[in-house]
């Protein structure tokens, strides 16, 4: 069963963001990794790339599906999780423990458009 970690914000396209000051760590939810199945590849942007809320910044591939990654916020990529290049299955093992990109937020007010864990859980159940 999928878990829903409190303290994170979620988007309808199943990304989460963990906010720490002016930075945010973006990944896919546990619900999303369950739906995808065995992740075999994570397509990530490069450091210094700009991301925009609601627009794709990469993709996650499983054997039989590919899903675009949609950024929940706008900002600049300051770090990517390089461990996923060799071990994409980390997303299956621990989706919340393995963020995909770290972003410097350009407009923190965008966070207001996201769901908390309880709302997101209800959204997934609907």
């Amino acid at each position: 069963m999928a878990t829903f970690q409190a303290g994170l914000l979620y988007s309808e396209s199943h990304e989460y963001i963990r906010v720490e000051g002016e930075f945010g760590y973006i990944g896919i939810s546990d619900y999303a990794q369950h739906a995808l199945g065995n992740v075999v590849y994570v397509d990530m942007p490069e450091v210094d790339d700009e991301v925009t809320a609601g627009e794709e910044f990469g993709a996650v591939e499983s054997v039989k599906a590919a899903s675009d990654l949609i950024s929940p916020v706008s900002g600049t990529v300051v770090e990517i999780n390089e461990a996923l290049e060799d071990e994409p299955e980390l997303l299956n093992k621990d989706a919340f423990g393995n963020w995909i990109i770290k972003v410097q937020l350009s407009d923190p007010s965008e966070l207001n458009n996201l769901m908390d864990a309880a709302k997101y859980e209800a959204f997934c159940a609907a």
Partner: protein
Amino acid sequence: MFKFFPQTQEDLQEMLSRVGIDSIDALYAQIPESIRFRDEYKLPSEMSEMEVRDLFAKLGSQNQQLTCFAGYGVYDHYTPAVIPQLLQRSELLTSYTPYQAEISQGTLHYIFEYQSMMAELTGMDISNASMYDGTTATAEAMMMAVAAGKKQNKVLVSKTLNVDTRKVLDTYALHQGIELETIAEKDGVTNLEDLKEKLAAGGVAGVIVQQPNACGIIEDFTGFSDACHDNKALLIINSVAADLAVLKTPGEWGADIAVGDGQSLGIPMQFGGPYVGYMCCTEKLIRKMPGRIVGMTKDNREQRAFVLTLQAREQHIRRQKATSNICSNQSLMALFVTIYCSLMGKQGLKEAAQLSYAGAHYLCNKLLATGHFSLVYDKPFFNEFLVRYDGDIDELFSFYMMNGILPGVKMNDGSLLIAVTEKRTKEEIDRFIEALPLVKGVH
């Protein structure tokens, strides 16, 4: 009854009754009568096998069999006897895309070999499972460069690219909204200075050049890859597959994508197809590459096995976000070139290329020695060269045709592009030259 339809009257009755209807016509009850087709098709009456043979023989006799010195992308190479025989193995011929790996190892296995061979020939890391032909593979490479290049939407194409390929590129670019710009030519080869200028203008996702080029000239791509990569553009080299057995490879030139036609690997000309397009690229680009890819894996009995892989890139999963709309590969033709490369092997491919090269240079020298032909460009060429004739080219062309020789491809400017392969014997080439005085009247 008909030989392809096994249903007897008795079968039909039993089947209809199982379905719960009383006539064949009832199967189509859902089609509105206004659009139901109830006429006779205006087609010939059924033909026996002998009659089909006769008709094709009659049509065939209306084609003139010529000794071929024409090229321009399609070459009259030798086909080993083994290949057509093996291609008729109907377990391979009458199968479809290898979805069920457990009963498709034959197909998957040879595609893996094909990919390995094409990667070797081009000097690139990886290959896809093959494409329709060289022109469409080049168009796919163009789209791949634009997709990989994020916001760049321009592709530069050398003036020395085969016009047949260029026209296909123009078509795809028009509908995709890709901006194509032509890199100027200088003395018959791609002008590097012009390329650099156009790259500097920005927005370029890819650069397409050809080897040997449309005039048969072997181009020197020194500096091309640096110029492209300095501007974040991908270098795409279109090459004649067979020539890569000896020529400097796209990999050695620093190409990101290598494409072209595999027809030169022994595939009969058959009036334009089927041939096979190849596409190879660097490992970095594997997930941007269109088409199918076969990979190695294990089965649940710990045996080595082959399977279609990286399918998440493909149209049946990605739908409108796929890197291409290509569904399948040109599998049987990929098998053709795989067997060709297996038979000819490391030495045979080189030997055939060497023979073509020698024959072409022999013919060229003899033609120049007549004093009636001159090379349009004084550049190194491989097995195809562009000459100008000092008389009436149309007259010369017709004369050769009457003598059973297709002397080359007549270009729009009146020059003649002549190709020689390993299939052209010394007698045939000498006949090409000896026939000449007759038309000039200088005996």
